[in-house]
């Protein structure tokens, strides 16, 4: 059981690390979904 918990932790760390790297790379290469350069902002857009 401890091995399962350890596997969970290691797996989560790996998944988290990979996703973080992917996130960072993609954030730097893609444009933001947020509105920019407005003066008065909407609560949101549908």
């Amino acid at each position, binding site marked *: 059981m401890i091995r399962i918990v350890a596997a969970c932790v290691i797996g*989560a760390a790996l998944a988290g690390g990979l996703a973080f790297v992917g996130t960072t790379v993609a954030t730097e290469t893609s444009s*933001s979904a947020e*509105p920019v350069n407005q003066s008065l902002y*909407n609560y949101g857009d549908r």
Partner: protein
Amino acid sequence: MAVPRLNAARAERLLPWAVGAGAGVLALGPGLGPGFMLSYDMAAVPEPPLSQVTLGGGGGFPRAVPSDAVLGALGTVLPGDAAQALLLMAVFTLAGAGAGRLLPGGWAGPAGSTAARAAAAAFYVWNPFIAERLLLGQWAMLLGYAGLPWLVPAVGRVAAAARPAGVRDAARLVPALLPAAAGGFSAMVLSALAGLPAAVLGARGAGRALRAGAVLAGVVAALSLPWLVPALGSGARTDPAAVELFAARADTPFGAVGSLLSLGGIWNAHAVPQWYGLPVLAACRLTLSAAGVAGWVWLVRRGGAPGFGAGLSAASAAGLGVALAGTTEPGREVLSGLIGLWAGFGPLRDGQLYVAPLALLQAAGVGAAALWACRAAADSEARVGGADAVTPPGGRDGEGHGDTGSRGRPRTPARSDRAAAPSRSRGLRTGRGRRSERPAASAGERVGALLGALLALAPIALLPGLLWGAAGRLDPVDYPDEWRRVQRLVDEDPRLGRVLVLPWSAYRGLDWRADGRDLVVLDPATKLFDRRAVWNDDLRVGDGTRVRLAEGEDPLADRVGRLHAADLGIRRYTASLGELGIRYILLERRAAEPLSGADAAAALGPLAGDNRFSSDGTGPAAVHDGARLLLLEVPDRHVDPPNDELTGLEGTAWFVTVGTIIWSLGGSGSSLVSMRTGPPRGAVSRKENPT
């Protein structure tokens, strides 16, 4: 000092807490360090005020009561950013722990059970609902979401108890409702939606159902008084036209229905995580949600959700129905009609909110799927290697159910159908709770547990956009010194008077991020001071090429809006503001300076003139004139000091609510939910009907 050994039972109990807390760390990431996470409605401020206004005084619809007061109370002992981080971590941790606790004990071996609880916890804290609501800044509502897995089974136990629900049961429900009580309006509405069906459907007979429902309604009302009393006296209105603006929408390739079923579908296109709509990820998430529903059906049919299975199913269906109603023309007409009839139906306009019970159902179902996997793997192994090799002491499916509570206490089999539950625990615990020697986990058990572990990781892998501050969107920022200076200037003034927040629009794009991107947030000035802020609570929503407006709820804001439209001239404008009790005008320069023409007139009123933002003696005088903020003071002779203190009724409401909490904690111990529940429903039935 001896370190407690991490035995299987302890790991099974603690892992969901760890999963919740770990998910919180992964999701908030840098936000747990210094600085404030600001996003749409989440406008945390330094030294958050704890004043009569944050407690509900001053009029206006109390949307932030008592959540801002809770933040203010924490702010008295912690820095404002730490208080915010603590509350957000509480959301994840409580949600994860509660979801993991929903599953029955003893349906698999220790490894399988632990993995199943981890899977349920992970799904509940890492799904599109929590991601989108977090990005929309609705942390107070998420407190209610975190409380749902504690509330629903607690209500089920009260409803199914041997004796009809009474006052003592109310004391047991209060702790489960505390997170929602701290969250306020939306959190409580959500809790009522999830709890009432469990109360009614979990009881035997109409009379008991009514009593259980009444007890829950009474507790919800008692804990809602701090915002309910000001709300009833606020004269607030809700714009029925807003139904269309805030209806759920398709944010995946699978339409509104598919989006809602996979717990997405929020109305705001800017509140979705990065890569959320990628077809592969969306398809996998929908599949996981479907697996959750299937797992839930499997669990309920085998009695794995005693007392609350039918209730949670009904709440999920009702919530999904409300959410779907906003996506069809007839449904929108019905909702608009209801809101027009009574403003209290206003919360129904944000339909996606109500898929929260479905998230809980799916989370429990995903955990159940892990339990099922353990069983299937063990059965498969039995077929290959012979029953004796894999059947745990105590028998196989259908031979008994030694259900073990989440705290390791044995339970009496609750219902006859639970006797058919896939128990693996009889050999692990004796009927009186004495621990017998644990057999080593079988190969099947290990396979099932591994599958459960994969299910626990799947939500994170399928929604990577929530990682590390939602891919940077929740990166913390610090307030410029000027903001803190203005806060001190106003708070140190002992004279009564409100603060008008300009430009006359609620949301700002602040350039405080290191990367230069604007962060969109409710103007923090609305929460910065210990006195009433008056701001434009009309909600602008972009819909295609148009910007549409949902009228706000604050009557005072409505009066200020009319002043702006009346073109009064600076003298009369200033005097009129003073008559409304406004002493200060705070103007954010970066939002105001680009405005021109009609936009400027609407957003700044007479302050939009050529000599705007400067005092020439005829209007308000500048007491702070900085690069970012301009603070103007209305001449004292014009200011009619307002009374924004709590009324006697509002004070009494707080007294009742706090008294109820103290009484319940005294009666039920300090845990979030009392475990001293009555005997399970089925067991009682046997006592009453020995035949």
